[in-house]
C-alpha cells in the first residue's frame, strides 16, 4: 500500500512517467537475468516487477518487466536491452496496450475468519478462492490487477493477515501476433526489410518526438 502511494507521489513529480511493461524475448542463457537487471540498476531505475517464463516459442524465454518511467527512458532502455547478444527483441507497452494479471496469496487464521467473516461472500465478492483450509489457517488466492488484489488485503487486515504475497505481473500484448514469425526472420541469415530493429523507423512520429 505504502509503495503504491509512493509510486503515485513519484508519478506526480514527473507527469510523463507512467507504468510501462517491457516484454523481452531471449535465448535461454545463464547470466542473462543479470545482464538485463544491471541495465536498470546502472540507470538507477527501480524494477517494480519482473517475471521470467517460457514463451509461445519453444526454447525462447520471455521476461516481463514493469517500471515506472517516461517513454523516452523506456525507449532507450529497450534499445540497450535489445543490443545484448542473447536477446532477440524487447517491446514496451502502456497498460492500455496489454492484458495483465498478478496473483496474490493471503494466509489468515481459520478461527478468525470462520467466526467473523462470511467466507462465501468474501470469496464471491473478490473473486478469491480458498487454496488450503486447515484448522489453524486458511490460504486464499486471487488473480487480477493490482487494485483488486490490494482490496482483499484491506478487507483481511482487520482479521489478522498472517502472510501476504503477490506475484510479478504477467502480460499479453493486445496487438501482438506472437513471436513465431519474427523468429523465422531472426533465423535467416539475410533478413528482409521487415526485420524488427528497423521497425519503428516507419513510425516517424514516435521516433522524432524524442
Amino acid at each position, binding site marked *: 500500500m505504502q509503495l503504491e502511494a509512493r509510486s503515485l507521489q513519484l508519478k506526480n513529480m514527473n507527469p510523463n512517467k507512467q507504468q510501462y511493461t517491457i516484454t523481452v524475448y*531471449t*535465448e*535461454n*542463457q*545463464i*547470466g*542473462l*537475468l*543479470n*545482464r538485463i537487471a*544491471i541495465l536498470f540498476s*546502472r540507470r538507477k531505475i527501480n524494477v517494480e516487477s519482473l517475471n*521470467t517464463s517460457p514463451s509461445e516459442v519453444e526454447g525462447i*524465454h520471455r521476461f516481463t518487466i514493469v517500471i515506472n518511467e517516461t517513454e523516452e527512458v523506456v525507449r*532507450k532502455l529497450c*534499445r*540497450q536491452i*535489445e*543490443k545484448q*547478444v*542473447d*536477446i*532477440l527483441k524487447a517491446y514496451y507497452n502502456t497498460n492500455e496496450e496489454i492484458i495483465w494479471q498478478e496473483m496474490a496469496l493471503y494466509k489468515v487464521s481459520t478461527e478468525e475468519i470462520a467466526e467473523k467473516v462470511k467466507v462465501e461472500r468474501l470469496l464471491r465478492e473478490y473473486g478469491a478462492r480458498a487454496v488450503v483450509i486447515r484448522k489453524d489457517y486458511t490460504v486464499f488466492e486471487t488473480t487480477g490487477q493490482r487494485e483488486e488484489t490490494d482490496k482483499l488485503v484491506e478487507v483481511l487486515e482487520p482479521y489478522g493477515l498472517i502472510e501476504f504475497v503477490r506475484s510479478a505481473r504477467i502480460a499479453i500484448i493486445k496487438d501482438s501476433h506472437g513471436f513465431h514469425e519474427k*523468429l523465422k526472420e*531472426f*533465423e535467416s*541469415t539475410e*533478413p528482409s*526489410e521487415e*526485420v524488427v*530493429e*528497423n521497425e519503428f*523507423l516507419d513510425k516517424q512520429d514516435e*521516433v*522524432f518526438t*524524442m
Partner: protein
Amino acid sequence: MSNATTTPVPTPSKPKAASKSKAPAPREINGSAAVLEAFLEEGVDTIFGYPGGAIMPIYDALYDYQEKLKHILVRHEQGGIHAAQGYARTSGRTGVVFATSGPGATNLVTGLADAMIDSTPLVCITGQVFAHLLGTDAFQETDVINITTPITKWNYQVTDATEIPAVLAKAFYIAGSGRPGPVLIDITKNAQIQKFSYEGYKKCSHIRSYRPKPIVRKEYIEKAAQLINQAQRPFILFGQGVILGKAEKEFQAFVEKSGIPAAWTLLGLSALSTDHPLNVGMLGMHGNYGPNVLTNECDVLIAIGMRFDDRVTGRLDKYAKQAQVVHLDIDPAEIDKNVKSTIPVWGDCKETLPLLTELVEKKTYPEWLKRFKDYYKEEVDAVIKEELNPTTEQMTMGEVIKVLNQFTDGDAVIVTDVGQHQMVACRYAEFKQSRSNVTSGGLGTMGFGLPAAIGAKFGAPDRTVVAICGDGSFQMTLQELGTIMQSELDVKILILNNRFLGMVRQWQQLFNDKRYSFVDIASPDFVMVAKGYGIAGQSIEKREDLPNAIKAMLDHKGSYLLEVFVGKENNVFPMVPQGCSVSEIRLK
C-alpha cells in the same frame, strides 16, 4: 531462467560452410588444445598473457604451439589487455588475451571497461577453478562472469570442453562484427583438461539473437541527401566508426564530393589526413575553437560513427539546437541516445556512405569554410602560436610534438596516456594514414600508453610507434618496460614531464582556486629505470637539445626512452569547461 541448466551454445549448422571444407576426421584433443586450434583458425598470431594455476593446462598446450602462436609475457594483466587493445587498434584485427582466475581476471577489468567504451575487439580467455568448486570460495575463485557483464559485449563460462570450438567461434564473431567490443570466455580447469572428440572448427557467421548491422534503408539515405543538399552551413563530425568500419576511403570521397568541413572526435583522429583541406580539426573539451563554436551555428550536422560523448557535446541542452541532425551509426542504441536526430541512418558506414555520396551534390562552401579558418586564426593568435613557438624559457608540450612531427612526417603511430599530454598530442600530432592514433578516449585510462604502444607495435611491426606519456600515467604501468626488454621490441617512449598530475592540476587552478590537492607527483630517474631494463634513453630540459634528442630517439635501433621536462604549470587551451556549452569555449 533460474532452473536453466547449462545449454550448449546454439550453432547454426550451415550446410554451405560445411561443404566448402571437408570435415576432418575427428581426433581426440583436450579443451586447451581446442582453444589454440580455434586461434589458428581465426588467424590469431599474437597472444598477450600471464599464466597462473587455473590456466596452466592452456599454457601447457601452448608449449606445443609456440611455432605458430606468438605469446607475449606481460608484467601485469592490465598491461596484457591494453597491449591487445593497441594491437587491435593498429592492425584492425581482434586482440587476444590470456589471464588466470581470480586476481589475473580482475586485473583485466580496467582494460575491458576501456575496450567496451572504445569499441575495441578483444577475446579474453580467463582460467577458472574446477567446475565442481564453483561457488565454494575456492582458491582464486572469483565470479568473473558477473564482474565483467557490464563491461563486455558478451561473456560466457565454459565448463565442458566440447563447447569450446563453438563458443570460441561465437566469441570471435561477436568481438569483431557490428560495433566491435570485448568478449570474455571463462574456462574452468576441468574443461581445459577434458579430452573430447574434436571434429574441426566452424567459423560463426550468424547468431539468431544478434544482428551486427542494421539493414540499410534507402529512403532514409534519400532524406539525408535531401537535407544535406539544401544546407547552407553543413558540418560533418566523424568518429571512430569510420575507422572501425574500414571506411576511410568512402568517407574521404563523401567529404570531397560534398565539400563539407569535417571535424573529428578524439577517436576519429587519423581517419582523415590531418592536412586535408576540409579537415577543420578536433571537437570537444580541448578541441579546436572553430569546430566547437560553429557546431552551434551550422544548419545541418552530419554525425558519422560517433556517439555524442559529453566531452564532445558539453552542455547537451545547448548543443546544436539550431541544427537538423543526420546521424549515421551501426549501433541503433546510439541513435537519439544523446542528441535527437532528424534523419537516422542506421547501418555500417562502409555501406551507407557510398550511397549517400552518390546522392549528394558536388559543392563547395567557401564562405562557411572561411569561418572555420577565421576562428583558427584567432586560436593561433591566442593559443597555438605560443604553444608551438613559445617565448617562455621552459619548453611546452606542443613544441615537442611539433618537432616530433618534423621527424616522423606524420607517418608514425602515436599512442598516448591520459592527461594534458594526451590532449596536446592529439591536438598537434600530424597523421597521414588511418589507425595511427591510439588513445584511451571513453574511459581515459592513465597507464594505457606504454602497454598499448607495445601492442600497437605488434599490430603494425613495420611502423614507428611512439608512446607519449605523462610522468604520472607512465608510473601506473611502467613495469611493462620488462615486456619490451624481454620481447626485444622497438617502441619509442616520450615522457612529457611537468612534475605534476597536470590535467588535474589545471582543473584545480581554474576551478578550485589553485588549491593544488595531491597533484604534486614525484618521479624516479626515468632514464635510469629504463637503463635497468636495458633500454637506452636520455633526459633533456633545454630547448636547443630537443631536435637532436628526438632524432636520436627515432634513429636508435630498438626501444628508447626520452624524457622532456616541460613547463610545470602550462595549461591546455582552448577549453570547454564542464557544464558549459560548446560555444562558451575559452581561449584562456
